[in-house]
C-alpha cells in the first residue's frame, strides 16, 4: 500500500533531478542563516557552485554542537511570523536544541509520516494509540499528525499509567500502537499480569531507541502485532525520517526529502553503499530550519539490494553511534550531561558512577552511585534520604531522567587514571 506511489517509488534520473532541484532550493534557503552564510564564505563557496548532487561534498558538515551554539533561534531561515511550532530536544549542558517548523514543514512532516503508516498497512478505520510524550518530544505531536493524516482515529494516550493504556487498547479495540520498544515490552508484561485481551492490535510502530530482532520476536509473539522500526530525529523534523516496510529488512528513508550520505566518522570520507558508517543527511524540504550535511552520529549503511516493495534504497537497522550519546527511555542523554548535573550538587562531589540497565520491567533504569562526601555527613539518616531526593529531583528537572540513587561509602568507587568513564551502559539490547 502506498500513500503517494509515484514519489515513493521515484528512482534514477527522475529522482536525481528532483533531489538536485530541492538541494539548490535548500542551499538558497540556508543563506538566510548567518551560520551558513559564514560557512560558505569561509569555504570560498557560492550557492551557485553546487551544480550536481555530488557537489554537495564541497560543503562542510553541520554538527549538533553547531545547532546548540545557535540556541535558541540562530538556525531559523524564516521570520518568526512564519514559524508555526517549536520543539526542543534535551541538551548537554542544560541548553537544548531548538527546532522550528513552518506551516508548510508541519504539512510535509505529516505527509512523510502518512507514507510510513500507509507502508505499515494502516488507514482510515484504524484506531491508533500514541503512547509517546506529547510535550516537547517530537514523537508525541509528530506521530499524532501523521496518524490523523491517514484518517486513523488517534488516541493521544501519552506516556505513563500503563493499566489505563491497556484498558483503552482493550475497550477501544485499538489496532495500532506507537511507543518506544522498551515501553512496549513493559506494557506487554503488565497486560499479561492483567490477563488483558489485546488481540485487536495488529501493528506496532516502535522507535526512538535501538531494539533487537529478539525484541521484535518477543513483541510480535506476546503483543500479537507486526512490529515496525521507526527512525527519526528532531533536527530532521522528528520521527518518520525512515521506516520499515512489510519486508522488515531495513528502513526506507524518503529520498525525495532527505539526501543521504554515509561517511567514515573518522575521516569524513563518503562511503559506497554496503559499507557501515555515519549517516549524514541533508533534508531537502525543510523551510524553517534547513540543514546541510547534518551529522546524525548514527551508524548504519545504505543497503545495496532493491526492495521488493518497490521503494528506494534502505538504511540498515540502527545499532551504534559514532559519539557517546545514549538513548534512555527514548531520551537522548550524553554522559557528560549527567556528569555535569551531578557535579553541580556539592554533596555529590567528584566520586560517582552512573549505570544504565534494562531492568526486569524492560524499561531503562539509571542507577547512580554516589560516594558519601564526609564533610556533609551530619550523622543523621534523614540527611541521606534528603540527598537522595535532591539528586533524583535535580536529574529529573534538568535532563528529565529518572534515577535511582545509591549512597556508598567513601573510597568504595573505582578511581580512574587518565580519562574517567563514570557513565556505564550495561544494557543488553
Amino acid at each position, binding site marked *: 500500500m502506498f500513500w503517494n506511489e509515484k514519489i515513493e517509488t521515484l528512482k534514477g534520473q527522475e529522482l536525481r533531478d528532483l533531489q538536485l532541484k530541492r538541494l539548490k532550493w535548500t542551499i538558497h534557503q540556508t543563506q538566510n542563516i548567518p551560520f551558513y552564510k559564514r560557512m560558505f564564505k569561509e569555504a570560498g563557496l557560492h550557492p551557485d557552485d553546487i551544480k550536481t548532487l555530488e557537489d554537495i561534498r564541497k560543503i562542510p558538515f553541520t554538527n549538533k554542537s553547531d545547532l546548540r551554539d545557535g540556541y535558541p533561534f540562530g538556525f531559523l531561515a524564516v521570520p518568526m511570523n512564519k514559524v508555526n511550532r517549536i520543539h526542543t530536544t534535551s541538551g548537554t549542558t542544560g541548553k537544548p536544541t531548538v527546532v522550528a517548523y513552518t506551516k508548510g514543514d508541519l504539512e510535509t512532516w505529516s505527509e512523510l509520516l502518512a507514507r510510513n503508516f500507509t507502508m505499515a498497512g494502516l488507514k482510515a478505520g484504524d484506531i491508533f494509540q500514541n503512547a509517546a510524550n506529547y510535550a516537547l518530544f517530537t514523537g508525541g505531536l509528530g506521530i499524532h499528525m501523521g496518524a490523523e493524516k491517514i484518517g486513523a482515529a488517534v488516541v493521544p494516550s501519552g506516556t505513563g499509567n500503563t493499566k489505563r493504556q491497556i484498558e483503552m487498547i482493550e475497550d477501544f479495540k485499538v489496532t495500532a500502537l506507537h511507543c518506544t520498544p522498551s515501553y512496549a515490552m513493559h506494557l506487554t508484561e503488565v497486560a499479561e499480569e492483567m490477563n488483558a485481551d489485546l488481540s485487536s492490535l495488529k501493528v506496532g510502530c516502535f522507535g526512538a531507541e535501538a531494539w533487537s530482532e529478539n525484541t521484535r520476536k518477543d513483541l510480535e509473539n506476546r503483543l500479537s502485532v507486526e512490529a515496525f522500526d521507526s527512525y527519526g530525529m528532531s533536527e530532521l523534523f522528528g520521527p518518520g525520517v525512515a521506516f520499515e516496510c512489510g519486508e522488515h529488512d531495513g528502513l526506507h528513508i524518503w529520498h525525495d526529502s532527505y539526501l543521504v550520505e554515509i561517511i567514515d566518522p573518522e575521516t569524513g570520507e563518503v562511503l559506497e553503499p554496503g559499507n557501515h558508517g555515519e549517516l549524514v543527511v541533508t533534508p531537502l524540504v525543510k523551510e524553517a530550519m534547513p540543514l546541510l550535511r547534518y551529522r546524525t552520529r548514527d551508524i548504519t549503511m545504505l543497503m545495496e539490494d532493491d526492495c521488493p516493495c518497490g521503494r528506494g534504497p534502505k538504511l540498515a537497522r540502527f545499532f551504534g553511534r559514532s559519539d557517546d550519546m545514549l538513548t534512555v527511555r527514548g531520551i537522548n542523554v550524553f554522559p557528560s550531561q549527567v556528569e555535569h548535573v551531578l557535579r553541580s550538587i556539592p554533596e555529590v562531589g567528584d566520586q560517582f558512577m552512573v549505570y544504565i540497565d534494562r531492568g526486569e520491567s524492560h524499561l531503562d533504569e539509571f542507577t547512580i552511585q554516589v560516594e*558519601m562526601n*564526609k564533610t556533609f*555527613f*551530619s*550523622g*543523621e*539518616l534523614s540527611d*541521606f*534520604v534528603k540527598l*537522595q531526593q535532591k539528586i533524583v529531583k535535580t536529574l529529573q528537572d534538568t535532563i528529565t531522567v529518572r534515577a535511582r540513587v*545509591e*549512597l*556508598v*561509602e*567513601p*573510597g*568504595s568507587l573505582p578511581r580512574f587514571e587518565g580519562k574517567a568513564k563514570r557513565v556505564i551502559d550495561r544494557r543488553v539490547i
Partner: protein
Amino acid sequence: MNEEYIIKQLSIFSENKAGKLAAIAKIFLDTGVSIQAFNIAEANNFGVIRVIVDKPEVAFEAFAKQNYALKYTDVLAIKMQDVPGGLFEAAKLIGELNINIEYAYAFRSGEYGALIVRVANPGEAAKALKKAGIELIPAANYHF
C-alpha cells in the same frame, strides 16, 4: 550543668551489604573498645550505625583512619523501670514536655532499662527532663 548527661554516640555511615557488620565489629575488637549500646537505622542500600561505646575517641579515630564517614551525635539516656509500663511512663513525660524524639532505641542495663533518645537540643532537654523528675543516666556510666 547538664553536660554530664550528654552521651557521645557514634553515628557511622555504612552500606547495607553482606559482611559489613562483621567488618565494623572487627574494628571495635581490634581497638579493644566495648560496645554499650548498638542500633542500626537503614534506608534503601545504606544505613547509619548508632553505637555507644566505652571509649568513643578511640573508636572514632579507628573508624576515621579506615575512611568511614562518621560523626559524634549527642544523645540522652533515660532510666526506665524494668516493669510493664516503664516505657509508657518515660514517653508520657517526654511528650508532656513537648520534646520531640527524633529517634530512640532501648536496651537493658543492669536492673533497669535505658531509653536512648536523640532530641533537637540535648542540653535544654536534659534540664527539662530532670526538672520533670525523669532520671537520666550519666554519660560516665557508659564512657570510661
